[in-house]
């Protein structure tokens, strides 16, 4: 792998093509896996990404930058490197980046999941020599239920709240999770409202042709309003702020893979935690690695050491790419900023 990609303080650098994959700092040329801000860094001069993510990436990056988009599966040559994008199943337009130099293939998964998600293309295995995989939930305590079961409990919660005359506040990241949640909500139960940061993401999804139920921007409602029985999808950073006061009696819930553990749920101090993740869980991480069948696995972003050790003990060469753990809130740190920019979180 080292001949193609090097780990540098700016992120993973490909010298042959003179670009970074998911840089950590602003660089001249960035190849990005998806539009979340811990992968698509604001302030780069140019971005190369998968075509289905175009609307999202343009929404989140500076319009001064140069953009180039490739359909899934198509390849271009940058320097001596053949670059192509393959569905990662994480959020709309998320991709695994395949880099090929003289027959040697490196795959950067970015964030990915194997489970169903109607708002993006499903993950596809890519055979490779080196696979750089995330491990956000790389411990055997993380096993996701099928999403139908999770949505059944979310809708059940909504129905009960409606009967009790409460307003549901459902938290998810502004881009990706929120739209997946919307796609799973049952709009026959009641009206769906969205926080500004979520609403922006919804626009990009709709423009990309993803079917989502009808939503109303919370900011467009002025004066007294009856919020009983309504569903409000918002970013987690509004929890406990004055912004939520307008809804009267609420029941709050967070949708995230972290909610699998009771302690994480209680720290959030939300009423309900729904375990719904856009990352691979333990069994699907192992399935994905077997399907891509690399000679070497490089583990990053999460429980890297544990995953690398487990793979090594089971006869697959595996190393830790970097020791930086991932903790709850890393991904939505950007959401908090965004919601402030939106001017919605006011005292």
């Amino acid at each position: 792998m080292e001949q193609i990609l090097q780990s540098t303080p700016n992120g993973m650098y490909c010298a042959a093509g003179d670009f970074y994959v998911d840089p950590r700092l602003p660089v001249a040329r960035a190849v990005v896996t998806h539009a979340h801000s811990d992968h698509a860094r604001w302030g780069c001069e140019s971005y190369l990404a998968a075509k289905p993510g175009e609307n999202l990436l343009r929404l989140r990056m500076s319009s001064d930058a140069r953009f180039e988009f490739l359909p899934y599966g198509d390849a271009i040559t940058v320097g001596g490197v053949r670059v192509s994008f393959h569905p990662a199943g994480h959020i709309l337009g998320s991709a695994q980046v395949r880099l090929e130099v003289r027959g040697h293939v490196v795959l950067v998964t970015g964030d990915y999941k194997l489970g169903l998600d109607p708002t993006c293309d499903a993950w596809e295995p890519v055979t490779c020599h080196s696979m750089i995989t995330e491990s956000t939930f790389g411990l055997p305590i993380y096993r996701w239920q099928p999403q139908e079961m999770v949505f059944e409990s979310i809708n059940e919660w909504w129905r009960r709240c409606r009967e009790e005359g409460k307003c549901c506040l459902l938290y998810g990241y502004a881009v990706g999770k929120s739209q997946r949640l919307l796609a799973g909500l049952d709009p026959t139960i009641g009206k769906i409202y969205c926080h500004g940061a979520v609403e922006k993401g919804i626009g990009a999804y709709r423009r990309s042709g993803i079917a989502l139920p009808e939503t109303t921007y919370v900011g467009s409602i002025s004066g007294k309003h009856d919020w009983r029985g309504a569903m409000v999808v918002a970013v987690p950073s509004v929890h406990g702020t004055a912004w939520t006061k307008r809804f009267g009696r609420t029941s709050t819930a967070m949708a995230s893979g972290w909610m699998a553990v009771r302690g994480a749920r209680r720290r959030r101090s939300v009423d309900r935690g729904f375990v719904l993740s856009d990352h691979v869980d333990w069994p699907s991480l192992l399935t994905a690695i077997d399907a891509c069948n690399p000679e070497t696995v490089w583990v990053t972003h999460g429980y890297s050491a544990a995953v690398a050790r487990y793979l090594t003990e089971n006869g697959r060469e595996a190393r830790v790419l970097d020791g930086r753990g991932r903790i709850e809130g890393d991904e939505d740190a950007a959401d908090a900023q965004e919601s402030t920019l939106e001017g919605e979180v006011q005292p």
Partner: protein
Amino acid sequence: MIQFANLYNAIDATTKTNEKLSALINYFGSASHADAAWATFFLAGYKLRQLVPTKLLRLWAAEEANIPSWLFEESYHSVGDLAETLTLIVPPGESADDLSLADWVEERLMPLRAMNEAQQRQAVVTLWKQTPTPMRLVIMKLITGAFRVGVSKSIVTRAIAEHAGIDSDVVSHRLMGNWKPTGKFFEGLISKEIQDTLASQPYPFCLAHPIELERGPESLGDATDFAAEWKWDGIRGQVIRRAEQVFIWSRGEDLMENRWPEIESAAQLLPNGTVLDGEILGSRDADQVLPFSQLQKRIGRKIASKKLLKEVPVVFQAFDLLQDAGEDIRSLPFRERRKRLEALLATIEHPHLQGTKLIDGGSWDSWAKTRDLSREKNAEGLMIKRWDASYEVGRVRGVWWKWKVSPFTIDAVLIYAQKGHGKRSGVYTDYTFALWDGESLVPFAKAYSGLDDSEINLVDRFVRQNTRESFGPVRSVAPALVMELAFEGIQRSTRHKSGIATRFPRIVRWRHDKKPEDANTLADLMEMLPP
């Protein structure tokens, strides 16, 4: 069992007392008496004796999940709760028919204890195959004995009282002491009829509120409305003399049998129908109370040796009388109870059973001066009690006050961190602090509490970014953070590297203004040792 698992989840899902209360009342209203009895048992904090060694549970769970044991431990450190780790790590099962809580406990869980290892393994694996995640969590908590959910015994008591339509002090009293969780017991618990108390049954303890040190006692009002006595550092207990027998209960509602033979024999002198509230103290003669560390030597022993009995003799210092000549006198004012207590104790003379001495003064200033002598007396401070108050159930405001001496404080450097448990699981919240000894930092105390959530998050980030080494779950970090620690007591110890043990160390504040080199030295700590 589904019903009980739902109750657990309903309580766990909310932080509001009223919602917890209504979930409990609903449950008690719909559960069978046998189920309600077991639910009361577990919710009130009682547990089953160990059914299966946890070492084996870990092993079997790792086998079922097809993972090595180090990965189980890694997961456990991340989750911070054993029952939950076991629940999450074994692939979920399908729920079979739904046995009641009582049937689960009596037919599936309790028999585990008598089985051999192979039978236990088979039973536990079967149980895993038959339980989906939420139900399994509750069952694993019952098996590991770590069934804690966010309700106190007093909330459970209130819920039962509301369900039964009786006074909660009555329920509280009926729940004291030893009882068996049976349908019949629960019927008695909710009965509107007045019942005979069991000879052994203690009364619920009255508890004190702390006087805030900054505000001082003046806010309580006129000092002449109060009595003052030493707040000793011993074991709170109730001595019961009924039906020619003696029972000694701890505040944790342990019946302490054969532990305190001196006090038991002294209590034989009391007339039947007497209940005393007081403190068990190590004491060589009337005026000299031994430090708690001495008494501790006797706490660990079921039966004390002759040598130890001689080395650490104990005395029961009675400060209240709850039952007098068979009459429950808790509703009388303290002034009257105290008078009766003194009259009663005057009739018996025994070195191991005495009454506390009230401290004269009657003004806050003179009591403040007395309080300053606490440390040399091996006392924690003063107790302040209202003359006209009845003996209340639990921590009722305004009746009893504890006026402790200010704690010791010292500035120390954080050098090790470990992830916490429960609500704090997965976050570095358990810290080890060190003091300077020449050029090196010597660990001397662990502290778990005192920071608020946002400070904990900052320390958590710091630990992740500044880890030097990991030893299992413990990380050593760059010595950079200085915190002010407070503690109640200090003594020499051969088990601690620093040679010193501190009592109840906790964090007072994060000293952002101090660099690690500004922290205190071990010599500074040594100076605080009693002469």
